[in-house]
């Protein structure tokens, strides 16, 4: 099988990352926004792995695993916060988060 070059990998990574950014900025549901952040992190992983192959080095692969570990820790805290939010407000819509203003 022909090896995939760097450019398609980076292109897919960029598309995924952009989708994630749009999701964070445009969606109103806390869970969807949270998923979009995870999408961004996975786009980064793809870029790391692609660059790692380009450099014929292993460290990029290791970084991807490190990032997954961090993302898992972040997910644990993030989901706990979403649950707390729901308990206090009975909503996870970001538009309703307006208790503070100045």
């Amino acid at each position, binding site marked *: 099988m022909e090896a995939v070059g760097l450019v398609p990998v980076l292109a897919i990574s960029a598309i995924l990352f952009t989708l994630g950014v749009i999701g964070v900025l445009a969606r109103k549901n806390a869970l969807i926004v949270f998923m979009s*952040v995870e999408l961004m992190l996975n786009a980064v992983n793809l870029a790391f792995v*692609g660059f790692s192959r380009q450099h014929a080095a292993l*460290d990029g692969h290791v970084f991807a695993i490190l990032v997954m570990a961090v993302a898992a820790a972040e997910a644990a805290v993030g989901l706990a*916060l979403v649950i707390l939010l729901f308990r206090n407000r009975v909503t996870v819509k970001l538009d309703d*988060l307006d208790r503070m203003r100045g």
Partner: protein
Amino acid sequence: MGSAPPVLDSVILAAPLMLLALMGVVLMVAAAVFRPMPRLPFWGASCLTVATTLVLVALGSGKPATEAFSGMLRIDAYGNFFAAVVLVSGLFSLLISDSYMERIGVRVGEFYSLVLFALCGMLGMVYSNDLMMTFISLEVMSIAVYVLCAIKRSDDRAVESGFKYFILGAFSSAILLYGVAFVYGATGSTALPAIAHTLREGGGEAAGILALGGALLLVGFGFKVASVPFHMWAPDVYQGAPTAVTALMASGVKAASIAAFGRVVIGAMGDDASNWNGALWWMAAATMLVGNLAALAQNDLKRIFAYSGIAHAGYLMMALSSVAAGGAAENGAIGSLAFYMLAYVLMNAGAFAVLALMTTSEGDDATDIDRLAGLGRSHPFLAAGLSVCLISLAGLPPTMGFIGKFYLFSAAIGAGEVGLAFVGAIGAAAGVYYYLRPMVYMYMREGSPDMAVDGRARLALGLTSALLLIFGLMPSAILQWANASMASVLG
């Protein structure tokens, strides 16, 4: 590189981090075992841990720079200085937190454990010599702080603050990490010295990818230090979080982020700084202006301090920009960044010690500026201490804030950044108004302020205001130390 030192040597070199992480785990387990939490042992153990860590950092200072964990960490004077700054901020936050947490009705041992984890992450950031290490330490710090923000689970403002911080923190971390990925792609390494080396050789083969990576890093750090245009999360998060946690966010988190940012700008991108300086210039200028002007319209003290923190991020970025531009060394003002960081942490610690006393009998934070009315008559010590901190924040003599601002601006002018210094001066002039406004309330309005009684908060306030005055009148020792620390990273 030579042969890598054995792991044990690295562990000893990184003893401050190890101690914080170890005690964080110990307290986390203890919090699960001893319920309800015995307050004094937990508070005492965490204070003792931070103090011991501070001693370890002090013992390590003066030694030549060493790399630990295969170059992941660089234990040098720069790291030691900022580690001390971060630990001082942690110590003051702990000092005000015990009775504050009791007042707001949060009695969980995890609080202390999370503070230690956050401090461990901050230390990782200030010593970090590798972009991946910076990212991981940043996450160790941030994840702990997300939880700390929402530690009062029944308070929907605190939970909202924690959630907002989490979403924007995770979002900006992802952007930062994408930047790391591109820098790795362009230079083949994430180690700061290796990146600097590649850049000196001509920037690697992919200049476009490198520029993109640099821009993403700048955006990511911009979010972390709350610089304009990435600052909008800070006021809500600062206001909603418990005051003791806000104190840590406003001082320690900011110091660690600036320190890591500084290492990347000065240590790695130094030879590519010309690309960065234009962007840094605009960000610093906008941050100083927007932060100071937006603070004018605020009536909640925590929001005022949030915007003040944004403005100060601008001053510190001005210092970064002038160090990166070069020329600051001849002016003797190269240490201005480190010196001002210490001043900033002390003034915030003192101010937040007073804010932490402003709780209602129901256990809510009530930090409206009206509640300071008459404080000068009813609580002369608190009013005097807060006034010293505010005068220092405004940059007026005879305080450390004045000396710090003086060196910041002379560094900028020495580096040829006259325009930036001018913008900063306008911002600082506007700042004088909102820093002096609480003093007008304290001394010139009638009222009967309702402040909690807490000896340790008073001790924190007394210590910080005394230090601000002492270092304001005799800055040379700290300044020398600051200069040496910055010199160690310029290499």
